[in-house]
């Protein structure tokens, strides 16, 4: 059954093609408020840009994306290790290889993340209202250290034993040992494969959204040359 031209909203009737009209956004309501906020703050052009300011042509911007690439390998190899259980990789050559993928992707993840952190420090990447982006990045770094620590303890080998026996004294000394016991394999393993990776993944998503929303910070001293008259260079803040 055909629809006569001009009988539906959005159809001009002139081209013979029927274009669906965008659904009318009801004002009010939680969903409408969130939708409006997202449209204002994070339009798709910002989330998935096809053009960027020319100053991003620098090696320093590589470290962020390779950190995410390494994290993808960490998560994928970790999922396989988790699926087959914590003892599998000790008795299976395939399991040992998967563990090796996990081990080296973690090493690369930290190398890239630290380079990214240093790059952003020397670029003063927190300028112009981007302090929350920096702070979320630092929190990711700190949680990653705790995650790696619980991973080393979950290895079930000599290194895991020695790290647990020694680390307990530092953790106990500040009173945290009552709730975070490195000698308790079950607790460490649960944190390592579940809560901490979820926290890191969510924070990385937030971090990327923050970067996309605010755009890449301008080079130090660039504002005078590119902003309209009367706008002064932004100090690091």
């Amino acid at each position, binding site marked *: 059954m055909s629809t006569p031209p001009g009988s539906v909203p959005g159809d001009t009737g002139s081209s013979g093609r029927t274009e669906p009209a965008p659904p009318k956004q009801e004002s009010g309501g939680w969903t409408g408020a969130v939708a409006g906020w997202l449209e204002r703050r994070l339009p798709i052009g910002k989330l998935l840009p*096809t*053009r960027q*300011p*020319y*100053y991003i042509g*620098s090696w320093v911007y590589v470290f962020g*994306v*390779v950190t*995410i690439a*390494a994290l993808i390998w960490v998560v994928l190899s970790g999922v396989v290790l988790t699926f087959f259980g914590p003892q599998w990789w000790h008795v299976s050559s395939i399991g*040992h290889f998967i563990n*090796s*993928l*996990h*081990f080296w992707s973690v090493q*690369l993840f930290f190398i890239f993340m630290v380079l990214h952190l240093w*790059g952003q*420090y*020397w*670029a*003063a990447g927190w300028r*112009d*209202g981007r*302090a*929350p982006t*920096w*702070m*979320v990045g*630092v929190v990711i770094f700190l949680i990653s*250290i705790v995650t*790696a620590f619980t991973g080393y303890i979950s*290895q079930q*080998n*000599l*290194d895991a*034993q020695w790290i*647990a026996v*020694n680390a307990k*004294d530092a953790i*106990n*000394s*500040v*009173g945290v040992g*009552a*709730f975070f*016991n490195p000698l308790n*394999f*079950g607790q460490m393993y649960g944190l390592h494969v579940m809560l901490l990776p979820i926290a890191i993944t969510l924070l990385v998503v937030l971090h990327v*959204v923050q970067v996309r929303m*605010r*755009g890449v*910070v*301008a080079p*130090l001293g*660039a504002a005078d040359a*590119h*902003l309209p008259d009367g706008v002064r260079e*932004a100090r*690091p*803040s």
Partner: protein
Amino acid sequence: MSWLRPARGPDPNSFRTIRYDLLKELTVALGVVSVLVLILAGALSSPDVKPDTIQRWAQDDPVDFVTTATGELAGSSVSAQYGPPYNSGSGSVQSLGPLHPQEWAGVHQHVDSVNQFVLDPLNKAAASNATLTSALATFAAAKADQQTSWLDAYTAALANATAQDGAVVVPAGDYGPVDPMMKALLAVARSGGLDGLLLSGGGTFYQTDYTSPLLFLGDGGHLSGLAKDQMLFGNQWGVMNETGRYPGQAWLWLYTLWYQIPPYNTASNADLLVVLTMGVLSLALLLVPFIPGLRDIPRWIPIHRLIWRRFYAEERARRR
């Protein structure tokens, strides 16, 4: 401060733009990292040195095992006197002036080394051992002073003990029932039974908490000997190291550094001082954007000239 507030200052969109493909960049990065990970994993593998066990300890170094177990029974071991969160001792409680944060949360993982590490396993082993049953009864019936006298004499004798065919032989002396008790515990440990008894001591079948066996192992010299061979000691920057020739937690280099230098390396509360120091430094890293001086260093030391080298070169050319 809003976590998702739009940026202030220069608008990135006000600059000349270039083509940019975010998803392509991520895909290329993933490809490069995949090659790196596969090559490293395939060529270098990963470390996996077998864990120590109480059985292995008792077989490799029976004198050290019996010496440690005697200390557990006497209540003189590190674990027996540790303090929170394991027990009410104070031997390992660290303080900062009048502050004892280690004691604030109290005892959460109760560890009674006398019973959990020695007497409970022996009572289970005594079910088919009349000599051990008698020795345990004698020890239990003795007054505390008598027990201490036997244990002190036995501990002193262990300094001259020898291992013969897997048994520990001490010079003759008045040790009461302690010698047969320790011989029985050594036999249980050498069979591998003590590894299981320390995990199932609470009557549980499933178990994932290794607090008891790890504390027992940590009190002895066998685990630390294996760790020293692998360069894992604190004064060997051990927290950063892995077994074999593999990189460890290199990102803990700063944490480990403090243990190597004064005043941390001689302080009795070194752990507490190091953790607090790292806490303060972590907070400073988090708050860099708000700390005058720290946030200005990138402006004073122009490494940003390298980061945006092409941008500044074009700026100079444009102004000429």
